[in-house]
């Protein structure tokens, strides 16, 4: 950012000079006016400025620190909770408890920015993590350094034994989960309709199957823009599915549902549907034919081609004047058009 601003200002040096003069002139003018009135209003001004400074230091500074912590919490809940917890155990990704102690800060920042480039650079710890968590890619995040730092700060504040008990109590991870509810047929059906787009999301979010596919006879084939969700439940777990649906960590999905979040009930229904689909497909894997399939296909092809060959035997194969044409003398001159 700084760099680009710098570039712009140097690049437009032509107009900079006259404007600089103008600004200086204005300052001089203001000082002149202030000087002129100082004698009259001096006492009042001083009191005002003093009180303003006091007010700022007393109110805004803590407020600013508070805002920073709030931002960390907001970002964490928005982008991380789908896969990570703080001291709540492994979800899709590792538990991030005490991350500020376990890993150097620079490493954490760059990993959050782009985990794949770290893994590709061959960092042993990153590679080990990648292998450990089923080679699931952590999406890149478009956070600024201060934002990442705020997240780390939030995690540190909520790691046990590191901060005040009050902060810990603020991390109410269970609040992101939907209240316990038993899955009914109705939920699954409703989830299917939401997935298919037969039922509109309350907040007008885009329907799932515009990007995702589910390999099922009774579900319309969906898009191939994003992952096939047939076995999403066994891959992500119920909590993971719910977290991703409720708060997409993926940039494209987050953008798509920006300002159109799903309601808790919708998240629950979709998760129920995905769970149902996953279990159903697991129990419905077709029989395995092995080499028999290949050879029966081969045999069928032979029969079919034989049939075609048989059909062709009775057809007219060549022109009736074939022999005459064969005998005719062909010209040998070059084609001048070539």
């Amino acid at each position, binding site marked *: 950012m700084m760099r680009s601003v710098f570039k712009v200002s140097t690049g437009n040096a032509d107009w900079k000079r006259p404007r600089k003069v103008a600004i200086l002139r204005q300052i001089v003018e203001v000082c002149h006016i202030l000087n002129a009135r100082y004698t009259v209003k001096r006492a009042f001004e001083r009191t005002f400025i003093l009180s303003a400074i006091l007010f700022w230091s007393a109110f805004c500074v803590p407020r600013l620190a508070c805002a920073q912590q709030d931002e960390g919490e907001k970002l964490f809940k928005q982008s991380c909770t789908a896969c990570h917890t703080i001291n709540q155990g492994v979800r899709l990704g590792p538990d991030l408890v005490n991350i500020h102690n376990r890993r150097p800060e620079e490493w954490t920042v760059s990993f959050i920015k782009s985990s794949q480039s770290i893994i590709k650079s061959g960092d042993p710890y990153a590679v080990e993590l990648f292998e450990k968590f089923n080679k699931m890619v952590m999406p890149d995040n478009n956070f600024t350094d201060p934002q990442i730092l705020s997240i780390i700060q939030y995690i540190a504040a909520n790691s046990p034994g590191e901060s005040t008990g009050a902060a810990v109590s603020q991390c109410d991870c269970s609040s992101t989960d939907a209240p316990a509810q038993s899955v009914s047929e109705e939920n699954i059906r409703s989830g299917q309709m939401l997935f298919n787009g037969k039922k509109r999301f309350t907040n007008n979010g885009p329907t799932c199957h515009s990007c995702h596919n589910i390999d099922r006879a009774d579900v319309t084939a969906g898009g191939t823009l994003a992952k096939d969700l047939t076995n999403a439940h066994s891959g992500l777990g119920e909590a993971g599915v719910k977290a991703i649906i409720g708060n997409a960590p993926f940039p494209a999905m987050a953008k798509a549902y920006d300002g159109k979040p799903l309601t808790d009930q919708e998240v629950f229904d979709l998760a129920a549907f995905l769970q149902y689909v996953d279990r159903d497909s697991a129990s419905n894997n077709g029989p395995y034919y092995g080499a028999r399939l290949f050879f029966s296909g081969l045999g069928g092809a032979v029969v079919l081609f034989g049939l075609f060959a048989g059909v062709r035997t009775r057809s007219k194969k060549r022109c009736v*004047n074939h022999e005459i044409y064969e005998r005719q003398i062909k010209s040998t001159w070059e084609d001048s058009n070539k």
Partner: protein
Amino acid sequence: MDVRAQISMVFHLDKCIGCHTCSVACKNIWTDRKGAEYMWWNNVETKPGTGYPGKWEDQEIYKGGWEKKGANGRISLKGAGKLRGLLNIFHNPHLPVIDDYYEPFTYKYLDLIEAPAGDDQPTARPVSLITGKPIDIKMGPNWDDDLSGTPDYARNDPNLQDLSPAEQEAMFQLERMAFFYLPRICNHCLNPACVASCPSGAIYKRGEDGVVLINQEVCRAWRMCVTACPYKKSYYNWSTGKSEKCILCYPRLEAGYAPACMHSCVGRIRYLGVMLYDADKIQSAATDHDNDSNAIDLQMDILLDPFDPEVVQAAKENGMADSTVKAAQTSPTYKFVKEWGLAVPLHPEFRTLPMLFYVPPLLPVMASLSEAKNAEQEKKLDPIAKSWNDDWLYDTSTEELWGTVDQARFPLKYMANMFTAGDEEKIKDILKKLMAVRIHRRGVTVGDIPAERVQTTLEGVGLTPEMADDIYTLTALAKFDERFVIPAAHREQAMEMMDFVGDTKGSSGFGINQVAERGL
């Protein structure tokens, strides 16, 4: 009786001079388009010859026409049908290819003008009208005209089957050869195989005049009609992806003009008129014969006498206009076909009941044929000249001036194979009639034939002197309006079958949507 009207044609082959004017007229009007260059809706062939496309009469190659199969005596298409159609629906195996017709070509005439100065005369090279590239011309639509290339073409004529080797040799002896021309257009059959074969239902026979047409908007390029038509008169346009055929110049007919090929005919060989027929008998006429002369008789049976009050009454009940019945009564084709029995259809054994009839040519008859001691004579045959040194095969010195039809130099069998499904007697009858008319007219104009001899000749073929004069008049002297008796088209009625015309009529005071009552 289900009386209907059919525009029918008669081509008088004795009058055809083989000038191809008809073909050119047709080409200029209808097929001078991209994709249609190779089509000749009207073409003129030399007989004996293989024709256009090559060997079109050989249905073992092209599988056209109808076939009587099985014990139930019903006929089915030779090359199409439900099961066969399904099996071949994406690949019709008996289609003629472009080389069976010929690859259409033109010449690069501009080269003659634009070639740079050089030592040699510039030439206009032939270029294909399909690919646009220079080609070697291999074939044309009338490549075997006037018996050119006889060993390849005339000797391979499918009609030569059943002819003895001696008879065949007789036809091809140098300086004694004979040939005639066979102009062909769509026969507008009563039992059209093309219509029956079309999977899209794009081909139809017009109700009012029996013209067979292909609806270009319905045609889906299956090309089953190309195979099914035994006369190979349905053509596939490779540019539009539709099949096309002779439309009998129906726009001209509707305006009262003769079709272009007939209008332009130099020899005035063509006649056109309406014939009434009994549609109830079509199936039996196509089915109840075994590829013999009975085919002709059955076809003649379904053609009705337009003077018969019963027929006229039935025609009226079928909604036929009086003007059409009147046209049928003055039809020249009715006279040639039914009244005089001079014209016969081409290849009735295809069972399509063609409605284009031919008056067979009374070809050189001034030579008699004797065939004896066959095996012995075969040995004497010169292998190169294909000729005998003595007068064994041919004797041109007949006692009578007219020779005898029985001993015609052109084998009757050949004609019979073409026109009467192999029945030589029928052909002989017709030729004798033609001969009798000539003898009669010679008696009238020259007077060197005794009257009683003329009398016996005419009686022998069942003609009266008046009939002979009529035949002579219609053959030799007929004017335009006698050769072409075109009924009023009554398009107003045809239009009412398809469109609701009540609005227009109501607004001009003719009443609402009702059958046209115009005193027709």
